[in-house]
């Protein structure tokens, strides 16, 4: 398959590393240097280094950069507290904020030529979604004890054989819909941009799609985080 020039892959190929030309390589080393892994590490490095550079050390009277980060963080915490309560927001904030930043930056990075979105690979989004899925049920068992399984049994006992498979199916459908929505949107953006660059890149044909890409990136990060919040709060509240 044709693929765009990714500068990290080019660099690694210059170092004689077996960069795969498909999605995922064969050997362990090829898997480790496949584009979505290397760009995930790039995003991670960006997210670790960037706040360090801009904030430096936290001061009592915030400067410009610290003001910005404080506004972002407190805005996100307020958004979470609205949906899952103060206590739940404080407990789940590190994980959800990580997802929000990671997915936002990972979506946006694909808009630059020479970069790709790690989230345009189903494995990455499925990994994020599985973390959300298992955390949901761990939270359920933490808040309700062993009685959490009653969430799956329906209101009356003689409906249990009917309701239990239905509930399990709808919980599994969440995994698929959460991962495939993010993957599909971002991969569509990437593919469309690639095709338009090849067809009419010299005439600025991809520009409208780039604008739409910014919008899609923000919306998909918001959707992923909001749906995780809703799933978490649904597993924490009392059985109906």
């Amino acid at each position, binding site marked *: 398959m044709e693929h765009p020039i990714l500068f990290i892959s080019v660099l690694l190929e210059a170092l004689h590393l077996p960069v795969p030309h498909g999605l995922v390589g064969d050997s362990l080393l090829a898997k480790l240097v496949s584009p979505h892994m290397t760009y995930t590490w790039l995003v991670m490095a960006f997210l670790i280094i960037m706040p360090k550079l801009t904030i430096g050390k936290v001061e009592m009277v915030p400067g410009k950069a610290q003001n910005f980060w404080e506004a972002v963080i407190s805005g996100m915490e307020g958004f979470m507290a609205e949906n899952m309560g103060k206590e739940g927001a404080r407990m789940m904030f590190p994980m959800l904020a990580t997802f929000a930043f990671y997915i936002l930056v990972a979506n946006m990075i694909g808009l630059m030529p020479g970069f790709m979105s790690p989230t345009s690979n189903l494995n990455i989004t499925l990994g994020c979604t599985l973390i959300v899925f298992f955390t949901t049920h761990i939270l359920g068992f933490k808040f309700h004890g062993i009685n959490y399984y009653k969430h799956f049994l329906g209101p009356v006992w003689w409906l249990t054989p*009917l309701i239990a*498979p*239905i*509930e399990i199916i*709808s919980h*599994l*459908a969440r995994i*698929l*819909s959460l991962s495939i929505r993010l993957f599909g949107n971002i991969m569509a953006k990437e593919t469309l941009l690639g095709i338009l660059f090849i067809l009419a890149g010299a005439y600025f044909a991809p520009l409208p799609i780039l604008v739409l890409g910014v919008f899609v990136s923000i919306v998909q990060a918001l959707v992923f985080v*909001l749906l995780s919040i809703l799933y978490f709060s649904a597993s924490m509240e009392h059985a109906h």
Partner: protein
Amino acid sequence: MAGFGKEMTKMLIEVSTIGMTVSFSIFIGVGFGYYLDTHVFDGRTKPWFTLIFLGFGVAAAFLNLYRMATRKDIGDGKE
């Protein structure tokens, strides 16, 4: 999304999941039933588990639709 309302955005996102949930519920049901038929029971029960779990998948899809439709916090006249 300034000027659009936080509640509205949240509801839009929640409601937008329903289409995917419906289709994936049905596919998971059929897939699991087909797996039971062909791999667990080696084709002795050929069409039956697929059909039964297709029913479960459709039921799960419609249960989700029903829950979304009868929710108390959507459309209670709050601005």
